[in-house]
């Protein structure tokens, strides 16, 4: 046994793993720490303070960031709800509807937004909306977000559905439930953890998107990432570090929730 464990171990791999985590987290931690810096310059350390968080909420750029945050949150919520609904139906088709024509093609189509480089999607979407004479703005951002959220919502939903045997639904059907009832009363409740998990991931993906939003947003409307990008173009200011830290925490909280909800479902099994 000792020999077997030994074969799994390579000298230096632990060190590289620590290095990997260090590289991934160091820049984020530095920004978090410096967001509490009580100094007008971003370089010098002037003691701990919450002043830049105050600046985010009540400072010169507060109105801009508030409007951007409202856009970001409403778009992310609607995009995530739509993407989760579409992904749930698609997962049911892929995993619980047997064979049908266009199945493998459909699977490829769902994953297409992950294959096409983001910038190409951005260009194509902008061209499309402009060609059909659609004014770019809130609605075009929302549509574009739903499209690229679908594969992310699909991931945990399909993973969850794979673990659900169809004996429960078959039992319902034997007791004269319609298939719609079986779906609504049996499958959906069993799917809840997967669906919540998918919703949360889609929400973050939408909240995080910069490139596609930047192309299709048009003038006069900003989401948080585009507003932050616009601000950073004139140099990194301390309030940017504060708002980055807040956004970072939102992402971490949502991912952790998604992870925990997903695991909760698994443990019941």
């Amino acid at each position: 046994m000792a020999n077997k464990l030994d074969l799994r171990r390579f000298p230096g791999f632990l060190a590289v793993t620590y290095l990997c985590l260090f590289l991934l987290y160091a820049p984020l931690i530095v920004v978090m720490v410096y967001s509490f810096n009580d100094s007008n310059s971003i370089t010098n350390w002037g003691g701990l303070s919450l002043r830049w968080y105050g600046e985010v909420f009540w400072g010169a750029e507060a109105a801009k960031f508030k409007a951007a945050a409202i856009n970001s949150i409403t778009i992310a919520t609607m995009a995530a709800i739509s993407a989760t609904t579409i992904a749930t139906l698609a997962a049911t088709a892929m995993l619980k509807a047997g064979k049908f024509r266009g199945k493998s093609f459909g699977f490829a189509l769902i994953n297409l937004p992950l294959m096409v480089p983001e910038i190409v999607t951005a260009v194509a979407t902008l061209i499309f909306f402009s060609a059909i004479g659609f004014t770019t703005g809130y609605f075009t951002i929302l549509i574009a977000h739903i499209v690229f959220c679908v594969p992310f919502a699909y991931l945990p939903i399909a993973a969850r559905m794979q673990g659900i045997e169809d004996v429960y639904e078959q039992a319902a059907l034997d007791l004269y439930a319609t298939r719609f009832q079986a779906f609504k009363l049996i499958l959906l409740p069993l799917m809840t953890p997967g669906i919540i998990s998918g919703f949360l991931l889609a929400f973050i993906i939408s909240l995080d998107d910069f490139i596609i939003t930047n192309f299709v947003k048009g003038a006069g409307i900003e989401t948080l990432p585009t507003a932050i990008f616009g601000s950073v173009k004139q140099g990194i200011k301390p309030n940017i570090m504060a708002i980055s830290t807040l956004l970072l925490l939102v992402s971490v909280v949502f991912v952790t929730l998604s992870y925990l909800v997903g695991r909760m479902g698994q443990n019941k099994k």
Partner: protein
Amino acid sequence: MAGLVSKSTSNTSTYAGLGPLLMLPSWVLIGFFLVLPVGMMLIYSFLTKEFRGGVIWEFSLAAYDQFFFDRGLFGDDPPVIEWTYIKIFWRSTWQAAVATFFCLLIGFPTAWFIATRTGPNKSIWLFLITIPYWVNLLIRTISMKFLIRDTGPLNEWLLSLGVISEPIHIINTNFAVQLGLFYSYLPFMVLPIYASVERYNFSFSEAAADLYASRWTTLTKVILPFVKPGIIAGCILVFVPSLGAFLAPDLLGGAKNFMIGSLIEEQFKGNAGNWPFGAAISMILLSIVLVVLTYYARQQGKEEAR
């Protein structure tokens, strides 16, 4: 990503016959708002540019011509090869390749280490690797920029520790872009390799050890061939987004280290824009990505046939 990493198989059929109906919303959505737009983009790349953005509906090869050939200031000289844009593509490919190499260098040992953990620690390690991926890419790139500035914390600490006597200039160099790409997509390398190592059967290692293979021989001759699909998947997941990346080259590279992403963006922003040209560059980028993905699919097919 899902398509690259896992495949779903299931024979249950409670909803037999409803498949197409259930798929309809996703087909309509993605067909109408992604496939159709890419088709429109292809058409636009063959149209005539209008100044101040947009197009004139007249067939033209000008966009592709501008990409590959230089016909002088007035467009009537004999065409010679235009290197400007090919160089930008070459630089992007190189930057993406370097980033991919370093991701593999760090990512493989990490994936191996995590996959060989036992008990609940394993999922915690894995979770720690995934978190940064879900953090806003813009914020991560800004963080990197903040860290490596000439007067940033990295230089300050190195100076105060006496490791260096004057600040190292990292920002606005090729290296900064490579670092940014590496940092952006590192988790993409770890996850598929992890999935491959998970499936590795350690009796192969035991067999190799019984036959007096050293640890490193076992690694290169037994383990690496087995986890190769995971390594290829990881490399593609890092290389493809790096190739078309916009944020890392824009924020960390400065004007001198232009990559494809910035070149495309430039065609759609401001008055210097040229939509057909931007569409043509996007089509060329998409073609390269499709070639890479097709190669990958072939490899996967071979692996499965084995």
